[in-house]
């Protein structure tokens, strides 16, 4: 019959019209900004630098002293659009395993260039840079506000736990394991040195950076 297809189409539309009053899946509007969708854990927007409150060596503000980044510049090299700019420091600090490492004197990310590919996170050997989830970053300053420096990028480990709980727990477990291994190695090295009875070489290797 001519018109049958049209009638079927009309029936379909009517079903959606009346369904939108009764069924949630037929009305998909989320009235942002009053309503928001639940954030998904794995979401990634722009990178940030993680700092640990308890591992600090030296003075200075908390975020600077506890930065995990050791300025190895691997993320700078691997970044596809080259939006990271790092300057190494001249001196070294101790990290959570007790090794002396450089730290970044400058660490700039231009988020107007960053394409959220998270290759920097993938290649970082020190779990120092992770992806943040904040996306309401509009600003009227075209150049300055979109170039984030070290201080703006540094966020504490608990922030990382808040936005990516599973990942952060895994990272913390891994770091604790590494620390245990390093402690065990240091202890066995100290015992070996004591057993060999080398006098005069009373090197005090701290088992870990003190709190």
């Amino acid at each position, binding site marked *: 019959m001519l018109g049958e297809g*049209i009638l079927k189409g009309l029936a379909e539309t009517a079903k959606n019209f009346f369904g939108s009053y009764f069924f949630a899946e037929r009305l998909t509007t989320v009235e942002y900004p009053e309503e928001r969708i639940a954030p998904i854990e*794995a979401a990634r927007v722009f990178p940030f630098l993680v700092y640990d409150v308890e591992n600090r060596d030296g003075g200075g503000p908390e975020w600077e002293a506890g930065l995990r980044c050791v300025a190895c510049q691997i993320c700078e090299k691997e970044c596809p659009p080259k939006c990271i700019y790092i300057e190494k420091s001249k001196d070294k600090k101790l990290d959570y395993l007790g090794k002396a490492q450089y730290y970044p004197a400058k660490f700039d990310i231009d988020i107007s260039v960053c*394409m959220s590919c998270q290759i920097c996170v993938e290649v970082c050997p020190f779990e120092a840079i992770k992806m943040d989830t904040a996306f309401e970053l509009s600003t009227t300053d075209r150049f300055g506000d979109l170039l984030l420096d070290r201080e703006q990028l540094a966020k504490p480990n608990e922030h990382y736990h808040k936005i990516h709980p599973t990942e952060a727990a895994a990272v913390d477990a891994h770091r604790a394991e590494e620390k245990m291994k390093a402690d065990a190695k240091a202890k066995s090295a100290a015992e070996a040195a004591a057993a060999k009875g080398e006098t005069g070489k009373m090197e005090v290797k701290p088992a870990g950076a003190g709190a």
Partner: protein
Amino acid sequence: MTVAGAVRKQLPVGWNRPVPIEPEGEGELLEVAMGPHHPSTHGVFRMDVALDGERVIRLKPVFGYLHRNHEKIAEGISYLASMPYTDRLDYVCPITNNWAYALAVEKLTGQTVPERAEYLRVILGELTRFQNHASSIGFFIQEMGASGTPLMYAFREREKILDLFEELTGARMMVNYMRFGGCRVDATPAWLDHTRKVVAGLSAFVDEFEQLLRTNEILMVRTQGVGILTAELAVNAGITGPMLRASGVNYDIRKVDKYGIYDRFDFRVPLGDHGDIYDRFMIRLLEMRESIKILEQALKDIPGGPVMDPKAKIRGFRPKPGEAYGRIEAPKGELGFYLISDGGPNPYRYRVRPPSLVNLTVLEDMCLGHGIADVVLIFGSVDIVLGEVDR
């Protein structure tokens, strides 16, 4: 739509081919530029059309408005760093772009991919195909004037699929998920359950979609017999994808190359007989159903194990000198990457074979003799994405 028109007696300079069809009568030819601002847009694209009354006499597609130097950039950065750029080629289907590139590099280096990674690739690839075909049909009907209703239904389903992508890879569209030798991140059992739930609902959606569209008389009257592409011309012009199969040629790279693990899945390839617009969009609808079949099988059989080749290097990746061409059946056609390596960390030559660009070459042949109102529909049925055409 710019309506800058000029009326001429002969064709403008630069249109070198002889006139394929003669204008009737001795009126002047009306030359109109449709684009680059289109209401029914698939991106920034221009068509210079010469009309005799309402009939199209010549049509010249003009693109390049979205050229972003993708291939040249790739020569300056490492292989891994090109992966996020491939997301942005056919930006509606980033997973399949990643997959084609990963396949090309794996051919270059001879890496193998673990089983679980192959299954994940198939699952994500078929989800991508589903949402691409749904959006393509939706946009096509929107251009026909149905005020966007089927488009909204298609996007409702697409949102569910994009949520799945975000849970797994971190981003809805620019996923950057495939790696050379596997996938970046393993899928949790929770994600697989969520995927099974979503896939269970897709069949009902395709039924609804089909009911809305397949027997609609107005749709049939506007699309049947319009924009016919003969099988011979399609094969000669290198057309691939649903356009080719709608013209009746049985060529699906998933069946021909059997890349990945596609030979383990039981799915059929629908073929059309007439090669007109109706066939093309019905083939896409039927392929959506086949994708659901593949998804159900893959989700049932997915094994455990690693998702990344343990010997694969992320940094310092220097393939031996050589060349490779890796191709897949992307939702729009054959997407291929041709790589030449000279042993360094960056490719020597990186070339993308975009299906949309090759499919566009027959636009004029399909539009000749039709009215200007049909040109928009024929163009929509080719299903292009300018990111791919222009790279």
